[in-house]
């Protein structure tokens, strides 16, 4: 049994706005074990950005933590003094962002940036450069030593993203958070990045929290999957279980809609009609009810809790109760 590295426990986060409270995260609970790759699948508005910024404690001024804890190696990050949080960021917890074009400082060479982020290390500058060069090599940048003196604009988008991964892994973090790292890249580059991540994860044994709305990538990379919709976790479990035996209508529809698995040319592609609800005016009952084609009476009045079905597979849907009762 892997030791638990990150525990999100009943997290509730709101944004205070002029229109009222935006309930961005509601009762979020899931774990990430040491060395595990957990994928978060969710579309626009599901709350993944709020989740990441909450873990890193880099939130907007109008963010309110109403309830819940984020335990990292046993300590609640939400109650940690800022000083200790800074120690964790970039050392124990690293992050790779979505847009490789904006991640690096355009006026400093890559080598300079990679040496700078080792500021906590007591190694000599030469040693830091050597490590930087090794990391560039590990992510497949040819001629790493020479390229340390180049500037970000001299690298392609795919290379910049690989450099970002190298920088994130240089401190050998316990947890790497990857926020849609391949969304801005072509399919061929996406595949390269995924394979790199797999290799590096084997090498460094870090846990990865991988956020994406690309189901194919999640299926290929992750051990476990958490599905989010409009600020709530609707399903979570082992990757095979989620894809082969989904227990929430949203997950089922999402898989159906992914054109990657529709082999024949479809006259009409499946979609999920309707819109994500307004987080300031959430409907009663299940948040997905308005767009669900399997809703029953109970869905309109009571919010289904996230329940354990079997073997680590959780889902928040009244239909599962019906099954069990039958």
């Amino acid at each position, binding site marked *: 049994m892997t030791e638990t590295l990150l525990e999100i426990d009943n997290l509730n986060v709101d944004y205070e706005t002029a229109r009222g409270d935006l309930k961005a995260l509601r009762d979020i609970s899931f774990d990430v074990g040491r060395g595990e790759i957990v994928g978060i699948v969710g*579309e*626009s508005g599901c709350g993944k950005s709020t989740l990441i910024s909450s873990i890193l404690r880099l939130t907007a001024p109008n963010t309110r933590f109403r309830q819940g804890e984020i335990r990292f190696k046993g300590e609640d990050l939400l109650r940690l003094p800022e000083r200790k949080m800074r120690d964790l960021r970039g050392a124990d917890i690293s992050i790779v962002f979505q847009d490789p074009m904006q991640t690096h400082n355009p006026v400093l060479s890559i080598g300079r940036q990679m040496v700078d982020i080792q500021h906590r290390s007591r190694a000599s500058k030469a040693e830091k450069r050597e490590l930087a060069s090794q990391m560039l090599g590990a992510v497949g940048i040819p001629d790493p030593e020479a390229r340390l003196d180049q500037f970000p604009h001299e690298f*392609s*988008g*795919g*290379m910049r993203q690989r450099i970002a991964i190298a920088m994130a892994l240089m401190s050998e973090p316990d947890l790497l958070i990857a926020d849609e790292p391949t*969304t801005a890249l*072509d*399919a*061929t*580059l*996406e*595949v*390269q990045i*995924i394979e790199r991540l797999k290799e590096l994860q084997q090498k460094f044994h870090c846990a990865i929290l991988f956020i994406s*709305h*690309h*189901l*194919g*990538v*999640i*299926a*290929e990379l992750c051990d476990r999957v958490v599905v989010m919709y409009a600020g709530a976790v609707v399903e979570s479990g082992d*990757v*095979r279980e989620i*894809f*082969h035996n989904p227990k929430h209508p949203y997950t089922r*529809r*999402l*898989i159906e*809609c*992914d*054109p*990657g*698995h*529709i*082999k024949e*040319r*479809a*006259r*009409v*592609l*499946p*979609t*999920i*009609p309707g*819109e994500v609800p307004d987080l300031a005016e959430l409907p009663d009952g299940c948040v997905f009810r308005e767009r669900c084609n399997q809703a029953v009476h109970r869905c309109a009045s009571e919010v289904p809790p996230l329940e354990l079905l079997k073997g680590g597979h959780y889902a928040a849907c009244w239909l599962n109760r019906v099954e069990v009762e039958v």
Partner: protein
Amino acid sequence: MSLLNVAGLKTSYGQLNVLAGVSFQVDPGETYALVGESGSGKTTVIRAIAGLAPAQEGSVMFGGQEIRGLPERSLRPLRKDIAMMFQDPVGSLSPRLTIRSLITEPYRIQGMKNRDLDAEARRLLEMVNLPAHFADRYPYQLSGGQARRVGVARALALEPRLILADEPTAGLDVSVQGELLNLLNTLRERLGLAMVIITHNLNVVRHVADRMGIMYLGRLVEEGTTEAIFADPRHPYTRCLLSANPEPDPDARLERIALKGEPPSLLHRPSGCEFRDRCPVAQDICLQTPNWEVDHGHGVRCLVPLSSQLRTRTT
């Protein structure tokens, strides 16, 4: 007779040869997909067709008329027939205008002020399944999917014969992608539109395009019907692209064909076959320049015989 006939189109910016001779045809009512990675030149092709990017050589025939190099004055009346959709859905809408003004802009530009623009706006919004009150909104108030639909509405305002769409589904959530593609399909059938769609997403191509062309470094390397290409890809690059599609199935064991190295810089084009330094099956013969060979409507630019290429699962 084809509606759009591009032949030998070449574009360079100084030393950079972005398009090295592109040729393809689109018939009325047909959807043609141009597929390729960033830097392949696909965006430049449609911009050159629309007169927004220069093209130093070659020919672009639209409805039998040569339009490459036409001065803006002569091109303007044709802009009724050729409409463009841009990659950035919100960014391609002028930020300080209402949706109503934005989708009726084509009428104003073409001097058709005597139409009832309010009615036209309502008609167009309905056509793309957007509620009528969206007419008073501003671009920043729209989601990506909604903004894309406004882009479609604007493109259709003057009932064009050809739509050029740049990555119409980029950045859209999967549940919303289908809506847009269904919309395009429906409108295409209803209005008899021809479309050229640019994308790097092969999944999208499969459901929307009749024919497709794969571009690499400013040239077409393979072309054919969508079915033929998916069933029987003949160029190593096409095979690589097709295999680089992670499936939403954790048990799918794709034999991925590794694409070596980086997309080459346009300044240092390899000699002979330009794909050879990344090609998994490159041989000595690839030092020669391959020709474009067509076999029953399926065109390929490759010297390596099919028999010695790797066989892979391509479904």
